[in-house]
């Protein structure tokens, strides 16, 4: 009986191909919109995850002050000291290396070129902890750092801004009245998860930064501590241990809140991807509205079709069609239309999301689940919005229907 209904429905769709294609347009657009939105959202999530991973997956970050949460002022918190770095290395065995960084924005210039960029004072361990690679030249070493020599390593963006094509190695750049020799260039990293250009950076030894770049008051201060955790060891454990250590070192009473925060990159990536997931769901929901509109379009056309085909329905009933056979025919017709729309919509979504992700520089992440879901929903819409017209057709009085003009 179902097979028969399908046969009848397909014949009917074939008879009215033009109208059928216009009817399914709504479903096509709806399904395509939902899948495209979700694919773009997934691409954004994947990109962010990848960018956070570029920070290093075994990274723990320690900053002064609390991350702001609702109803809590940021407040001022003391910076870290260089001794804190040593203390962490000694006390928390799982930490392989500690890099301290401090930074401030400044103008750097070479010949007639200049650019405004963050100047980051750091220890040699930052190269490894920060997951940086050297593209040209070298990084500064421990003795150079301790001596506070005025050396610097440029990010790719700064190198391009100041030196366009030529090699900067050995040249002297000026910043805040300090002349600084370029000894290396970092390999580009691209945008950070927050959308910052990570290559817009100038690195110099922390000692040199403290003496020459930072203001008088923060001479000995280290802004952020970056810890790299030994492979295979839990970063969560390090977060706990370092928190306890820093509370002790900063003399925080047991009933007081931390005046620093410790978090690992997974927490950042979780926070960011949960944001994009919410956005993805939101966009998907908006797109789903168009799917609903498509369903109403199908109902509309099916109702028109029932009225238009009243005599035909009367003929079918007179010939001996059962009520449920007529119901099934119209229902299958609606489902066939919407399911077909769903398939075309999926195809369209693949093309559209492939084009859009490559245009937006996002990775193309296919989600088969959402495609399956969109298809099921479109077929479900056929059932939902096809039922009322189908029942109307099935309940027609054959005598009245045959008399219908």
């Amino acid at each position, binding site marked *: 009986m179902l097979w*028969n209904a399908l046969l009848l429905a397909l014949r009917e769709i074939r008879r009215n191909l033009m109208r059928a294609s216009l009817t399914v347009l709504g479903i096509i657009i709806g399904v395509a919109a939902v899948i495209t939105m979700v694919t773009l959202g997934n691409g954004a999530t994947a990109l962010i995850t990848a960018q956070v991973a570029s920070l290093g997956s075994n990274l723990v970050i320690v900053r002064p002050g609390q991350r702001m949460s609702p109803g809590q002022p940021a407040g001022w918190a003391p910076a870290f000291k260089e001794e804190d770095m040593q203390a962490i290395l000694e006390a928390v065995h799982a930490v392989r290396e500690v890099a301290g960084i401090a930074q401030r924005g400044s103008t750097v210039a070479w010949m007639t070129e200049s650019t405004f960029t963050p100047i980051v004072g750091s220890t040699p361990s930052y190269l490894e902890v920060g997951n940086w690679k050297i593209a040209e030249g070298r990084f500064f070493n421990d003795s150079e750092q301790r001596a506070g020599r005025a050396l610097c390593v440029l990010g790719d963006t700064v190198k391009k801004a100041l030196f366009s094509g030529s090699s900067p190695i050995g040249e002297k750049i000026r910043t805040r009245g300090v002349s600084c020799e370029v000894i290396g260039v970092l390999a580009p990293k691209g945008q950070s998860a927050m959308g910052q250009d990570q290559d817009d950076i100038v690195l110099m030894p922390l000692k040199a930064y403290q003496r020459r770049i930072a203001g008088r008051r923060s001479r000995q201060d280290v802004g952020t501590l970056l810890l790299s955790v030994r492979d295979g060891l839990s970063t969560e454990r390090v977060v706990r241990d370092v928190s306890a250590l820093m509370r002790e070192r900063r003399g925080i009473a047991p009933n007081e809140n931390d005046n620093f925060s410790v978090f690992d990159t997974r927490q950042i990536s979780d926070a960011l991807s949960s944001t994009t997931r919410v956005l993805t769901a939101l966009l998907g929901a908006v797109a789903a509205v168009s799917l609903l509109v498509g369903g109403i379009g199908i109902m509309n056309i099916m109702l028109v079709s029932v009225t238009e085909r009243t005599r035909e329905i009367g*003929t079918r009933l007179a*010939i001996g069609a059962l009520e449920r056979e007529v119901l099934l025919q119209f229902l299958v017709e609606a489902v066939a239309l919407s399911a077909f729309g769903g398939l075309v919509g999926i195809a369209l979504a693949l093309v559209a999301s492939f084009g859009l992700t490559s245009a937006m520089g996002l990775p193309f992440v296919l989600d088969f689940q959402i495609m399956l879901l969109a298809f099921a929903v479109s077929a479900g819409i056929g059932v939902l919005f096809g039922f009322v017209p189908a029942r109307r057709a099935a309940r027609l009085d054959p005598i009245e229907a045959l008399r219908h003009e």
Partner: protein
Amino acid sequence: MKETLISLREVTKTYGSGQAAFQALKGVSFDIAEGEFVAVMGPSGSGKSTVMNILGCLDVPTSGEYLFLGEHVELLNRDERALLRRHCLGFVFQGFNLLARTTALENVELPLLYRGLPLAERHAQAKAALALVGLTGWEHHTPAELSGGQQQRVAIARAIVTRPALLLADEPTGNLDSERSAEIMQLLTGLNQEHGITVLMVTHEPDMAAYASRTLRFVDGLIGHDTAYVGAD
């Protein structure tokens, strides 16, 4: 002795209720035997359409009995009556009622589709029925490509393709000129005489009724005249 196909006993039909009630049939009784060709005549409002709808199992009598091959049709529900139509009845309408944009062959196949016949059988039987009404070679034409007479032939083929016990024709020549009408009537007569199909035809044209072997004339919801009894005298 031919077997009785249809038996109506004191059948009444009332439309509406209360003051607006209208009694279309006021107690009608008659039998139709297998192989008869009966014409039902009468002015409009005489009840001939109502009796046609009841005989076609599209409607049920308000009171009285309707036996079709011994079965009490007035006791059947909607689905059971649909199955009776599917298996025992064929309909020919004044307005042909063919499916538009559908070929003659597919139109004739339609009742077989509801009977659940496989494709090959459907094709063979539909082709045979079209051949019987003289439309071999026209199988793949849609109604729009056929003349009125040809469309009615397709409709007749659709009605007889299931080999019904009774063929009901409601003003089958109402939309045709006299030449086509005569062709259709000859076709119906041929089906009746050569293939033994029982035919009941509603018409208001005496010329068409003349092809029938028996005429029932309705007047005001009652049978005014039945030529079967004339013949019996």
